[in-house]
């Protein structure tokens, strides 16, 4: 709509200072969040395996990450002789910077109820509780997650060693194929919400839903299919289990991180967990209405942030739960799932939503449109399955060499 009201008038010293304050707060918040996330993951995985997890550093071992980080910083920083020196040194930063930037577009608070539009007042200036609200919003997120691939890819390539190279080849193939499914399911959200800006997507979801009981979340409005596709593709994009072929320890040592040590290794870990948190935040923003939620009792400003954290926590728990439960995918299963299932399903659902929208605008009979769409889907599915089957048969007969 209008973007952050902070920059609506003249931008003076006060606006710059408020923005700087936001940057500092967000940076500190992210760093602490990563620390807690690593601890939470280790603790929860331990709980799911009848173990107790870290207990030594601080109460309940909560400072374990800090101890590990300090240890890593004081370790010797090794650059292998065969490494492409400059790229090798640069790659971890290429992974960690997009991870930090990505969170800047996430609205983490502000009252969205009753047309308040999530505006908060800081030092007499109205602003959003998010660092940046670019009109391209979610495209920025997709672009940054593409850049993050380069960090992983260049790290593996520049190590001058075979396992990192294998890992980075896997990483680039995996992240590029799942980005398509990710983009297509985002397209469904954008189509329904009518905006690319993350703030506007949240504001739209905060509106009254069906029957005033069910929230107007995209999980409901855009359907559960894009949500599921997005969560699966997002997990693959993060290289988290069960999609962690990139760093599959049993096969390729540590993948792209094999030759890294000391602070650079810590940076890769930082980036990985930052991305986990950010991806969860994007799930929340796109599908679960971000910080929107009812104000129950007490101060108004605290509830949206609480709702946001609560929803975020659900996904963080989900990621750890996935890791504790599922074994790793095989490489061909990974590619099959991405190309033959997720992308067609996401695309089909997107077209269905578009058809319903057009039918609505043109005043066509909705039932006929949906019926026709389903019929077309039936045919398309049959064609796709047929194509996959015949390809498989041809391969078995040795007619196609791959």
């Amino acid at each position, binding site marked *: 709509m209008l973007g952050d009201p902070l920059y609506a008038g003249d931008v003076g010293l006060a606006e710059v200072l408020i923005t700087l304050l936001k940057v500092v707060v967000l940076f500190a918040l992210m760093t602490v969040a990563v620390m807690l996330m690593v601890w939470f993951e280790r603790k929860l995985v331990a*709980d*799911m*395996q*009848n*173990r*107790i997890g870290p207990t030594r550093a601080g109460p309940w071992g909560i400072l374990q990450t800090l101890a590990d980080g300090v240890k890593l910083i004081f370790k010797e920083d090794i650059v292998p002789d065969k490494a492409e020196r400059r790229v090798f040194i640069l790659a971890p930063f290429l992974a960690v910077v997009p991870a930090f930037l990505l969170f800047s577009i996430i609205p983490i608070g502000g009252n969205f109820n009753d047309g308040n539009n999530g505006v908060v007042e800081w030092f007499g200036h109205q602003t959003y509780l998010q660092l940046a609200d670019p009109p391209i919003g979610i495209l920025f997120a997709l672009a940054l997650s593409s850049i993050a691939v380069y960090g992983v890819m260049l790290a593996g390539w520049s190590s001058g060693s075979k396992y990192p190279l294998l890992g980075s080849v896997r990483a680039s193939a995996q992240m590029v194929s799942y980005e398509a499914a990710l983009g297509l399911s985002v397209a469904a959200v954008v189509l329904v919400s009518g905006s690319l800006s993350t703030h506007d997507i949240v504001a739209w979801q905060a509106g009254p839903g069906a029957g005033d009981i069910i929230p107007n979340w995209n999980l409901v409005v855009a359907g559960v299919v894009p949500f599921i596709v997005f969560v699966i593709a997002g997990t693959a994009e993060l290289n988290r289990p069960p999609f962690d072929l990139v760093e599959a320890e049993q096969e390729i040592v540590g993948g792209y991180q094999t030759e890294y040590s000391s602070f650079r290794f810590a940076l890769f870990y930082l980036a990985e967990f930052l991305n986990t948190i950010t991806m969860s935040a994007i799930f929340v923003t796109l599908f679960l209405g971000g910080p929107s939620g009812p104000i129950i009792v007490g101060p108004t400003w605290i509830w949206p942030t609480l709702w946001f954290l609560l929803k975020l926590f659900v996904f963080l728990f989900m990621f750890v*739960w996935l890791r*504790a*439960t*599922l074994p790793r995918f095989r490489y061909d299963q990974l590619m099959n799932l991405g190309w033959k299932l997720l992308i067609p399903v996401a695309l089909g659902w997107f077209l269905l939503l578009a058809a319903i929208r057009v039918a609505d605008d043109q005043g066509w009979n909705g039932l006929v449109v949906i019926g026709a769409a389903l019929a077309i889907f039936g045919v398309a599915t049959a064609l796709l399955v047929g194509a996959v089957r015949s390809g498989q048969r041809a391969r078995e007969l040795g007619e196609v060499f791959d």
Partner: protein
Amino acid sequence: MGYLDGFKVTFNKLFEKRVTTSYTIGEGEKAPKPDRLHGRHVLNRYEDGMEKCIGCELCAGVCPARCIYVRGADNPPDDPVSPGERWGFIYEINYLRCIHCDLCVEACPTEAITETKLFEFSFTNRHDAIYTRDELLVGDDGRPSTCPGKTGARVRTG
């Protein structure tokens, strides 16, 4: 639920009892060990202080890891170290090689060598991994020496 059953398993584990045992119980006291734990060896003495080892080298012969080195010598007649004819004047176990199979304990005719439940080995160089009779022999109180080869070790001679 088919595919999703696994999630139920991991979730239910959250509420189960933990199997982890603590390294120490309270201040400094170690958790109880299994009955048949094979730890560090000791060379025992009789109640009168005489050494049980007679330097027969059977333990060295039976050792599959070849980690024991024993040399026997005749007891000095005026001040015998062991009640038998001979005594082990060199006794060394290399704990970088020892597999704690306990065959030496079974081979010993006088029950001179037995295994304790001490398990904390740490060396900073290879030489420290070789425990000599100074460190293996129990003290006059019949207890194994606390921390051989390290600071505070009880140093005894033959």
